């Protein structure tokens, strides 16, 4: 026997406009979840595609040259013989130069921005640095060609040769007239400074205030606090930032192509023109005439991918284990 309450409730439920019962939510929910999941899985698909395409394109060259490809300096399209060594060396050296220049400057700037700069100056400086990162590589390369390379040829190289010419790296003629490994290193440095700076800044910001306070309480000066408490704690994260910058430098193409001289050689002298994996692929791809030539270029791409992947994975792990998901890698 239904009570008044139950009758009232039943009436109310019946009166409720049909529109409120509309909408098969469980179906919609499941469909939407599947849709977004498939889109998210695209990242795995893309990685697989990249690996597969490069491997497929390289098979010819891999079968022909085996691992000699990695240690041979013989790049001779006329005889259909290819070796990757000068480009591997060029990639590593140009990136090393970039790190040597960029790391001290970036970390010092990051420290300045988080610890030392007056508050009103911080946001504008940060904005400038982020705008620097936004400059397209081809424009930076064009500026490099037009402004930096001549300046290197007329000012910096003679000065370096004069003062430090006893070092083999600053020895020798610059028959590239400024187009050189050093030019590539400098332009790479300009490109990776923003990334290293911004990630380092976030790392330093995440250092708990307690570390600083404890150091101050012990009577340390401002610089000592920075050095011991902040930098010491942040070491792993900062290293990760540097490695991320390295990863970026290894893969950079356009700006390097426009200032490095594009010679299939690797010389000790930094004044000499050379090539990197990326710049050589960029300039040679349209010149390729034989299948083996193409395959060799694909294999260069595979080597480049392998090196950058390794470095990037290392960087990601360092950053994620330091600070967790709060640090977003900038690009």
């Amino acid at each position, binding site marked *: 026997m239904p009570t008044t309450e*139950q009758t009232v409730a039943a009436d*109310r439920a019946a009166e409720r*406009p049909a529109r*409120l019962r509309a909408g098969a939510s469980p179906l919609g929910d499941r469909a939407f979840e599947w849709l977004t999941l498939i889109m998210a899985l695209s990242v795995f698909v893309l990685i697989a595609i990249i690996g597969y395409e490069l491997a497929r394109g390289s098979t010819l060259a891999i079968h022909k040259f085996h691992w000699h490809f990695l240690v041979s300096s013989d790049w001779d399209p006329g005889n259909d013989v290819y070796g990757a060594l000068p480009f591997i060396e060029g990639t590593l050296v140009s990136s090393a130069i970039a790190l040597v220049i960029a790391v001290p400057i970036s970390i010092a700037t990051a420290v300045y921005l988080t610890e030392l700069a007056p508050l009103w100056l911080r946001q504008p400086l940060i904005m400038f640095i982020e705008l620097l990162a936004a400059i397209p590589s081809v424009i930076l390369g064009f500026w490099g060609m037009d402004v930096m390379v001549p300046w290197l040829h007329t000012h910096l190289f003679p000065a370096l040769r004069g003062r430090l010419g006893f070092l083999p790296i600053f020895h020798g003629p610059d028959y590239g007239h400024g187009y050189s490994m050093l030019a590539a290193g400098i332009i790479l440095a300009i490109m990776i400074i923003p990334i290293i700076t911004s990630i380092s800044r976030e790392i330093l910001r995440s250092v708990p205030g307690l570390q600083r306070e404890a150091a101050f309480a012990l009577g340390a000066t401002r610089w000592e606090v920075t050095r011991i408490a902040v930098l010491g704690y942040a070491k792993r994260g900062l290293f990760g930032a540097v490695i991320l910058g390295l990863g970026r430098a290894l893969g950079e193409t356009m700006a390097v192509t426009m200032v490095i001289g594009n010679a299939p050689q690797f010389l000790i002298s930094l004044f000499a023109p050379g090539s990197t994996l990326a710049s050589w692929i960029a300039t040679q791809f349209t010149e390729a005439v034989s299948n083996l030539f193409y395959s060799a270029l694909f294999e260069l791409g595979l080597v480049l991918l392998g090196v950058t992947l390794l470095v990037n994975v290392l960087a990601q792990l360092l950053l994620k284990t330091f600070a967790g998901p709060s640090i977003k890698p900038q690009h």
Partner: protein
Amino acid sequence: MATANTPENAALTVRNLSIYFGGNHVLKNVSLDVAAKAVTAIIGPSGCGKSTFLRALNRMHELVPEARMTGDIRLFGDDIYARGIEPVAVRRRVGMVFQKSNPFPTMSIAENVTVGLRLNGAREKKFLVARTEESLRMAALWEEVKDRLHAPAISLSGGQQQRLCIARALAVQPEVLLMDEPASALDPLATSKIEDLVRELKRNYTIVIVTHNMQQAARISDFTAFFYLGELVEFGPTPKIFTNPSQKRTEDYVTGRFG
């Protein structure tokens, strides 16, 4: 097990409710009846499970990843945890207002009130306009906002935003309204407005309110349930709980010996 009234005039009947979050046994074998068109207050010290209990009543605890429940909850006789019953359907009959008011920031006042209706398919303008006024009147907010229904909802004061959230919950015409410490973030004047509102609303709605403010519970509720460490210690008419409780722990709590 404590019940205060016979099942016939209960809006919600809870039997042997236990809730686990992963390995944690958060609610232990709770049974009670929530009286229809009355205010039932849930009190107890922090961490006693009162919020979890409230959320079990509209299946909101299921949002926690490893939540499990055993037991039975019936809304006017309907088992809300039966197989095939979607949580969404339950929540249209059992509404909720939260501690921190959360009107949707991209919508106006009017849009906030009708969002529950519109996002479930309601289209007719006349219907929506009428329901907007009705809900805002029931939430004692109409006079204050009737001239600016299209102003952003976040332009209201804290107390007004909370009343807007109440209007928003009422607009879908739930049978039961759950309130999780609705006034704890508000100043005393706004709080007393909310309390007056609750007294008005119980004429047409069943209300379950969680509060850490015992005096508030004493002021506005008809029945009170005292929770401690996940257990329902005592449940009964409010005057009895506060003046002559049966359990010593209840007495200790309401007299302030611990909290």
